């Protein structure tokens, strides 16, 4: 036996021992079914198979892989926002997936497919003919009680013919071993993107394990969903938008992630406008039709004219566009009416009536208390039931936000509830209490049982409903199964549906003939353009401020600390930082404090750290347009500058930090130059940088190359614009005013000169789309052509501060003209807050 074979044999023995130890140390909660340990007390075979393979990794290897997964989540920015949070939270992912066998999965999938068909028919009836209402199968008051029953949509046939396009069901396994439907998500189900992100992270951490377990792929489902949306449109190359409530929504990350993954245009309500019964996207090339809108805003917020008048998230006139058939909305407005618990009570009967079948997946037995018989039985059986608000609201008349558990009510509460049921039974639903199963989580080297809820997704496609083989699993932080929404202590898990045989890597790429070659990617919405522009401007401001700081630190190192002489370079750099609002005036006499404040301080809005935060905020609004690397670098930049402010900062340290931050900005610039597609987005982003670089360079020149500037000042200027080496190689004598001015302001070959920025801006503005084909120049282009002519014909000898100020002001005027021409105007402007002293 070779040495390695011996080791392998030993590892196998170790692995088996560790699986045995894990299994022995795992005890399901008393009276609660479990995914890992069957009702017979024995571990289920597929779980053992999984653990066997997992334990082939040594403990340290496994922990390293877990750590990689966690880091991956943090780095790619997988996050969510708890309601009311100001900042995003990293996504807590369980290291152990939920495993479901193929046979069992087929039953779940069939049940969900049936339920999707059923719900589509019920919705069509509620908003259409109302036969179920007339026949008494569905009481009118149970429908109208839901705030998601939207009167203006009654009688409106959904363009495309379907109400539901993506639908989700929350399910759990009951003590009888069957899966139960706990709730329907018919409005705008969230979580599918997190499921995708979870898969990516876990499959990457354990590629072999993932392959060997024959896990079903998720990608075909998403492709089918996208094709389903496409097939709804009236045009062959439709524009499909994902309508988001914006970056402050709980699941904005997921929306941006899915928009990018599916190639959809991520838009906010303000990006859209209704004209002539159709919905258009405001883009930098004018209005472009939106054919299909996948909405992630609630229906009620979709149209302030006919729905919630206070909504700022919607599109005025959208409902009328639907009446005109001008746009497809997924899911149809008002679909959320089916999410009411009251509706669940009618589903078994409606399934028999509409499909002639029994429900394949039972739902939690529910009684709507608006009906006399149901009310009586709920009162009689109260101790076995939970009492919920009939429409997904908290139970009226009781303080708890959760359903009431009948058995734990006091006598007083019970009699109060009975009186409320008599007065307004329509508001309450009784539901069976079911102990749902637990699944193992990894906790400090052991497996522990935790309650979970599984959300499964169905997408409507031309071939019927497709069910995602997997799902979004939320695991409770506590052993109490009742509250499993994302919040404190809750984590999510990847869901592995295990096929009977190896899963083929299906290529999703369409065949050559079906693809029309295109070179211009999509359309740039005005709001996205606005944020890209400001991302560019803030990055450039951060860079200019950091260059000042670095230069100041280096001069202090050279000249030694101490009070700066008036008129010295140190004093001039300091005063410039103060006038740029990078550091408070109070630090003027203490250069070290000034440097620290300009780097890390939050007293003045122009400090490097705050400018970087502004850049990051602008970036967060357009995350789907930035590469993961860019987003990571912006995060790194923020971290580099966000440090503990207490504790003194030595000159060399300040220099190091500014230098490190500048290196990251250089990397971002490099990515933009080398990796960003030269579409309109890149041009707008780069235009933002060029405008601010031009402005800042003018300011540097006016400050350090005024008529009577000493040589030392000119030297600082060459440092600030990175032109020392070029200057020295071009001019053998020392620094002189005119050559320096020429190099910094007029030299079109110097990528840091003002003239160079002007040339690039002219290229960008020439290439960006025009609003009309009348051959007339648009304002931004007219301004830049004037400026370019002035810069090209100026000579160094004719330059003075007044002329340079003229360039600076022209560039400021150009920035306004760009904003007026390309970006959103009016009250819907969703731009980054432009608080800065530079423009």
């Amino acid at each position: 036996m070779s040495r390695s074979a011996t080791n392998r044999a030993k590892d196998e023995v170790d692995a088996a021992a560790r699986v045995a130890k894990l299994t022995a140390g795992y005890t399901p909660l008393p009276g609660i079914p479990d995914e890992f340990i069957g009702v017979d007390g024995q571990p289920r075979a597929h779980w053992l198979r999984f653990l066997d393979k997992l334990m082939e990794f040594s403990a340290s290897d496994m922990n390293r892989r877990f750590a990689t997964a966690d880091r991956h989540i943090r780095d790619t920015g997988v996050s969510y926002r708890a309601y009311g949070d100001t900042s995003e939270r990293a996504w807590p992912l369980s290291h152990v997936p939920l495993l479901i066998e193929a046979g069992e999965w087929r039953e779940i999938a069939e049940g969900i497919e049936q339920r999707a068909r059923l719900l589509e028919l019920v919705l069509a009836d509620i908003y259409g003919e109302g036969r179920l209402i007339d026949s008494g199968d569905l009481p009118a008051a149970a429908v109208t009680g839901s705030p998601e029953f939207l009167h203006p949509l009654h009688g409106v046939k959904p363009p495309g013919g379907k109400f539901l396009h993506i639908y989700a069901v929350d399910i759990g396994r009951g003590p009888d071993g069957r899966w139960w439907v706990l709730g329907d998500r018919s409005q705008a189900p969230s979580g599918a993107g997190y499921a995708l992100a979870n898969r990516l992270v876990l499959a990457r951490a354990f590629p072999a394990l993932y392959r060997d377990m024959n896990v079903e792929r998720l990608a075909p489902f998403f492709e089918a969903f996208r094709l389903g949306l496409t097939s709804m449109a009236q045009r062959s190359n439709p524009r499909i938008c994902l309508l988001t409530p914006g970056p402050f929504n709980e699941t904005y990350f997921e929306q941006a992630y899915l928009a990018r993954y599916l190639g959809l245009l991520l838009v906010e309500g303000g990006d859209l406008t209704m004209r002539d019964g159709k919905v258009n996207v405001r883009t930098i090339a004018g209005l472009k039709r939106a054919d299909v809108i996948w909405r992630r805003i609630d229906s009620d917020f979709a149209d302030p004219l006919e729905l919630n008048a206070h909504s700022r998230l919607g599109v005025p006139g959208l409902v009328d566009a639907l009446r005109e058939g001008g746009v497809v909305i997924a899911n149809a407005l008002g679909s959320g009416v089916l999410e009411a618990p009251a509706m669940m009570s009618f589903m078994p009967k409606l399934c028999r009536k509409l499909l002639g079948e029994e429900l394949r997946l039972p739902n939690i037995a529910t009684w709507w208390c608006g009906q006399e018989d149901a009310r009586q039985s709920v009162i009689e059986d109260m101790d076995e039931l939970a009492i919920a608000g009939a429409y997904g609201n908290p139970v009226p008349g009781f303080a708890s936000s959760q359903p009431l558990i009948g058995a734990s009510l006091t006598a007083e509460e019970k009699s109060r509830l009975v009186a409320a049921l008599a007065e307004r039974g329509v508001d309450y639903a009784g539901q069976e209490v079911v102990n749902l199963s637990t699944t193992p989580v990894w906790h400090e080297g052991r497996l522990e049982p935790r309650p979970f809820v599984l959300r499964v997704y169905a997408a409507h496609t031309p071939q019927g409903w497709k069910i995602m083989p997997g799902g979004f699993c939320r695991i409770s932080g506590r052993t109490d199964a009742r509250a499993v929404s994302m919040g404190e202590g809750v984590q999510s898990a990847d869901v592995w549906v295990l096929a009977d045989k190896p899963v083929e890597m299906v290529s999703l790429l369409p065949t050559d003939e079906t693809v029309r070659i295109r070179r211009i990617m999509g359309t740039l919405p005005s709001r996205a353009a606005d944020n890209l522009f400001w991302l560019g401007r803030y990055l450039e401001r951060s860079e200019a401020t950091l260059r000042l700081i670095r230069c100041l630190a280096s001069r202090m190192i050279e000249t030694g600390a101490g009070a700066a002489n008036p008129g010295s370079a140190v004093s001039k750099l300091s005063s410039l930082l103060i006038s740029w609002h990078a550091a408070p005036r109070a630090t003027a006499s203490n250069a070290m404090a000034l440097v620290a404040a300009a780097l890390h301080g939050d007293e003045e809005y122009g400090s490097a750290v705050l400018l970087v935060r502004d850049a990051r905020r602008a970036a967060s609004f357009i995350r789907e347009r930035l590469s993961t690397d860019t987003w990571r670098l912006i995060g790194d930049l923020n971290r580099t500058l966000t440090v503990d402010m207490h504790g003194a900062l030595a000159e060399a340290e300040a220099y190091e930090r500014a230098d490190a931050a500048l290196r990251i900005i250089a990397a971002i610039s490099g990515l933009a130059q080398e990796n960003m597609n030269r579409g309109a987005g890149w041009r707008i982003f780069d235009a933002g940088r060029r405008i601010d670089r031009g402005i800042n360079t003018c300011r540097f020149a006016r400050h350090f190359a005024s008529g009577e500037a000493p040589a030392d000042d000119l030297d600082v200027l060459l440092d600030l614009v990175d032109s020392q080496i070029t200057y020295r190689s071009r001019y053998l004598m020392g620094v002189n005013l005119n050559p320096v001015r020429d190099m910094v302001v007029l030299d079109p070959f110097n990528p840091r000169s003002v003239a160079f920025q002007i040339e690039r801006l002219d290229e960008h503005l020439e290439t960006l789309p025009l609003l009309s084909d009348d051959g007339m120049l648009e304002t931004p282009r007219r301004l830049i052509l004037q400026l370019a002519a002035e810069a090209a014909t100026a000579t160094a000898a004719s330059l003075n501060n007044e002329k340079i100020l003229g360039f600076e002001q022209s560039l400021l005027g150009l920035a306004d003209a760009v904003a007026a021409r390309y970006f959103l105007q009016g009250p819907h402007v969703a731009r980054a807050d432009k608080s800065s002293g530079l423009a």
Partner: protein
Amino acid sequence: MIYDIRHLTLYEYGSTVTFSHCALRLLPIGGPGQTVLSTSLRITPEPAQTIERLCFFGNRLTFLTIETAHRKLIVEVNTSIAIDRGEPLDEAATPAFDEVRRQAFASASLDKESPAHFLHPSRLVPRYEPVTSYARQSFPAGRPVLAGAKELMHRIRDDFKYDTKATVVSTPISEAFEKRRGVCQDFAHIMIAGLRGIGLPAAYISGYIRTIPPPGKKRLEGADAMHAWVSVWCGEAHGWVGLDPTNSMMIGNDHIVLAQGRDYADISPVAGIILGSREQDVDVQVDVVPRV
């Protein structure tokens, strides 16, 4: 009785508006006891597009698209309406309120008149237990629904003070109820909340009321206002009956219906997002002139 009504709405903006979408609910509807003889709608500047629809609750909804740059928007409606409502319903003849509640819960209709639409909380009329307990006092078991509703109406009139300064359009009913002050809109919302709280369907009606000038005085031009009241559902046999808590009276030939809905949010006369304006100022003038 025939009325000539002029309803003028004038918006002034702080800056020029170049594009605007809005929805008007300013044209009256016919119905039991009410016949619309003529209506005219004049808008300045002239809209690029005007679309008329009936909303779910049967009100006339006018969508405007204005593409002319403007700082002033003028909407003028002139209407002539004939009113003849007949004898008010005898309260003793109406069913017990608990029976009405039972019928409403069991309703098998989503038609615009169905009690099911007016049974639940709505945008501006949320559940509010103090109002419900206030209303409950007028409804001992078995009391005919209209008797209870009329008593509730009288109590509101007696317990509340009409005060145009106490509330604004967005004041929640809880605040108006605590203050025991408000205007017709508040009283209507409070009465609706009380009725729905005990399981009775109630609707919000907006319209006009004939004002009678003090003896010897002339009617003041433009001094009339929009009015609002309540319609309560009295069971399948009797349907909807109008009650005006502000004036403590049943709806008669002095009341002219403009629109109906679950609350003010369903019938607000002008809805719209005005692009490009920072501030706006609105002026409304109403004249209700009975023909002699």
